[in-house]
């Protein structure tokens, strides 16, 4: 008799919990903020760990978002929002078609493409516009955009540290898909890129960059690390390019080195695409069927990649002369690849149709198949694990690596954002006074404007008054020409220089 009662209580309990759950779910669905929308990004999500290592330092940098949000909808112009935005602001771009070049000469602006029901905000260059995004500021984040039909680059950075370029889908956007240049501490992840006539992801003259989880296919080069240091290329899928993953030193650039690069846990397969690079470009010399290409770079570690079906060679290590690029020599640039480390990799079905030169080399070893790994030209100190696993050529002087793996390196991103230079108020005053004002004002002699010692008499203890005058000069003296407004100086610089000039003693 007890049993049915118990069972009915149990039934009631389950039923109640079930109803509560539905209620909670429905309530959440209807009343929670941002329901159905992409959530706001956490500021500095750059430091979200991609591995389980060093998680403790990550949380230190999470900050509350407290900027302004600009919403850009189909028919609007993204640049209108950029012009209004201040550092720390977020620009959310909703699905629609936008045809413009977005240039960002400010710091800490986040662009978030809102993807709804599978519809992306699309930046369409219509084969008329040069670049989709051009930035020079620090702390730029760009995510969730589909970028098509530009002639230059999808996303290009010139300087600008601490960037995040994530979840973008870039198709036929010109010469480079994603191209940060002169940047420090940047993350490029989860992007999909195809149809790019040079490198889809091109890290040029940068430091501390992680390139993770990207899919690159149908480009001349998939991922290229050039004249950059401390770069991690991990978990990417590079296929159907002419060359899959590249680490280069190109001569003739102002920054001369590439070293400390880890290429790890990538799929590098069937990179047999016809080379459609522009005549004269560095990558136009890459033979189709190249998996990984190291040219002149130093201290590159290649570990645990699956490299298959690349018809020419799986991994090529070459000096500049044999790299197939035609460019002037540079006496300040070392053309040889040194200290390359090849750890465990899986290499199958490479070299099935080697190009002429490679074929000729292999015939000297009585093989008609191209090698898994080819080393050609100068370079010293390179090593490989289990060389006998692969068909190789030119690795005669490769020793055994001193390391087994790279697991101590989880990321090359910095523990903290790369800091801008810290400048004191006095220094800013000095830079402004000597760098700008001293063209007209000297301490006690007359140049063009009033001497500083006279200004000191007029504005004693009143730097704010001086700032006011700088913004809107009114000619008070017949014996001097009128000063043009100095309102182009930043508010900080104006106050700093006013205080500095009032404190000058000689």
């Amino acid at each position, binding site marked *: 008799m007890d049993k049915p009662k118990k069972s009915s209580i149990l039934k009631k309990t389950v039923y109640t919990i079930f109803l509560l759950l539905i209620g909670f779910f429905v309530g959440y669905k209807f009343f929670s903020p941002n329901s159905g929308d992409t959530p706001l990004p956490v500021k500095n999500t750059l430091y979200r760990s991609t591995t389980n290592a060093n998680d403790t330092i990550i949380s230190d940098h999470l900050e509350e978002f407290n900027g302004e949000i600009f919403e850009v909808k189909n028919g609007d112009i993204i640049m209108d929002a950029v012009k209004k935005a201040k550092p720390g602001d977020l620009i959310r771009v909703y699905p629609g078609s936008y045809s413009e070049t977005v240039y960002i000469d400010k710091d800490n602006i986040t662009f978030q493409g809102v993807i709804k029901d599978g519809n992306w905000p699309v930046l369409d260059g219509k084969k008329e516009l040069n670049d989709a995004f051009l930035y020079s500021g620090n702390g730029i984040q760009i995510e969730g955009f589909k970028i098509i039909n530009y002639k230059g680059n999808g996303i290009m950075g010139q300087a600008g540290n601490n960037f995040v370029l994530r979840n973008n889908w870039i198709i036929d956007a010109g010469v480079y898909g994603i191209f940060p240049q002169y940047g*420090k501490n940047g993350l490029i992840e989860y992007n999909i890129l195809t149809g790019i006539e040079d490198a889809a992801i091109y890290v040029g003259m940068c430091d501390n960059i992680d390139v993770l989880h990207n899919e690159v296919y149908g480009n001349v080069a998939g991922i290229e690390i050039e004249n950059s240091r401390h770069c991690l290329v991990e978990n990417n899928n590079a296929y159907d390019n002419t060359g899959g993953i590249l680490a280069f030193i190109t001569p003739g650039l102002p920054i001369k080195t590439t070293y400390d690069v880890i290429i790890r846990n990538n799929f590098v397969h069937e990179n047999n695409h016809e080379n459609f690079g522009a005549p004269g470009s560095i990558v136009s010399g890459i033979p189709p069927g190249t998996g990984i290409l190291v040219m002149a770079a130093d201290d590159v570690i290649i570990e645990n990649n699956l490299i298959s079906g690349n018809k020419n060679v799986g991994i090529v290590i070459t000096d500049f002369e044999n790299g197939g690029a035609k460019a002037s020599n540079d006496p300040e640039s070392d053309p040889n690849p040194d200290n390359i480390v090849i750890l465990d990799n899986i290499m199958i079905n490479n070299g099935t149709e080697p190009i002429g030169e490679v074929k000729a080399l292999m015939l000297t070893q009585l093989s008609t198949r191209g090698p898994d790994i080819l080393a050609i030209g100068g370079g010293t100190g390179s090593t490989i694990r289990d060389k006998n696993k692969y068909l190789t050529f030119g690795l005669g002087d490769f020793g055994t690596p001193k390391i087994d793996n790279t697991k101590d390196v989880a990321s090359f991103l910095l523990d903290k954002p790369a800091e801008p230079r810290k400048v004191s108020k006095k220094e800013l005053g000095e830079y402004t006074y000597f760098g700008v004002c001293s063209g007209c004002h000297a301490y006690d002699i007359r140049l063009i404007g009033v001497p500083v010692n006279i200004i000191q008499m007029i504005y004693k203890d009143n730097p704010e008054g001086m700032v006011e005058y700088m913004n809107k000069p009114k000619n008070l003296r017949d014996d001097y020409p009128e000063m043009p407004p100095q309102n182009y100086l*930043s508010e900080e610089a104006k106050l700093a220089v006013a205080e500095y000039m009032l404190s000058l003693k000689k």
Partner: protein
Amino acid sequence: MKRLIFISIVGLGILLTFYIIRISFISIPTEEYSQVFKSEIELCKTCPPGFQLNENNQCISRNLYMQYESIENKGVGGLKSALPTVRDGFTPQQIDLGRYLFFDPILSADGSVSCSSCHDPEMGFSDGKTVGVGIHQAKLKRASTSLWNVAYLKKLFWDARAGSLEEQMQGPLYAEDEMGTTEDQLLATLNGIGNYQRLFADAFPKRKPNDSIKLHEIYTSIAAFESSLISLNSRYDQYAHGYHQALNEKEIEGLNIFRSFVARCAECHTPPLFTNQQIAVIGTPEPDGLPLDPGAEITFNDKSCRGGFKVPSLRNIEKTAPYMHSGKFKTLRETVEFYTKGRGHAVPENEDLFIHWHIWEPNLTDYELDRLVDFLNTLTDESFKPKVPEILPSGKDLQNINS
């Protein structure tokens, strides 16, 4: 009677001289930065604009770009990037002495040309000519380069054959077709001029009072003056530092074309100096009838550098027409158009040059070329242009310069 008239005329002359001197003494402190009206030249004791005097009597470069950093400290990057390392630390006296030397034709073999003959402050420190002109109207091989911001350059001459200003200036000083002097003549000339003996003693106070003028002192002084030619306050700079109203819409369009990866100008003319200081083979045409200039091939004894030249800075480029090493292009419009006329289109048929990879076929439209010129014109700033001396220590006439 005749004697009386003579004495009174002499007396009047003396009075007049005193009067002039008195007037000049009164007017000096407020009138002039350099004391040019004084009967006796004295060297300036303050630094030129752009420099701060430190406790060791050295002029230290100061500008708004010192707020920023650049990757590997190479002074290349974007809008808010630091400049390359600068050559500074000269004394105000050395800089001012260098100014006199720079403008003084006494430095040339026959007293006919000075440094400023080819590097005229009124012409953006170039000369407005296709190629430079030396003594006896000798036509030189290449266009005179601007001297604005040379303090930041690591290599000098179009073919990068000099590594310092001191090394560089010995080229034109002693080249037979430029200033045509010799070390001996230069020393004999300057040591024979009392004014210069006195000024060198002032600019190099550590030496013994009766020491003669030395070559290295001449080189240091001219280098000091050249290093003081700073141009970093253009409208572009105002934009770069954050005042976006400094450029109009068309100029900003030009900036975006300039730095886009279609035109690729900024790849070699990299901010903030607008040069990456590298050698580039771009295949510009020579003047009609002249053979290809091998350029940096000679400097580096390397065929792959044939036809290569140093990337010039574009600051004050508006002022330094005509353009390129050969002075082939008269206007900026012609110059930017060169880059869209096809890779290697002007290279002689029998030449196989290693044309730079950034030279390609960007297919820029006329509209885009016009905007590029708009932008280039925003790089003009001559606010720190130095004053030409009104009298020279040698007593030579400045009027003869640039004739």
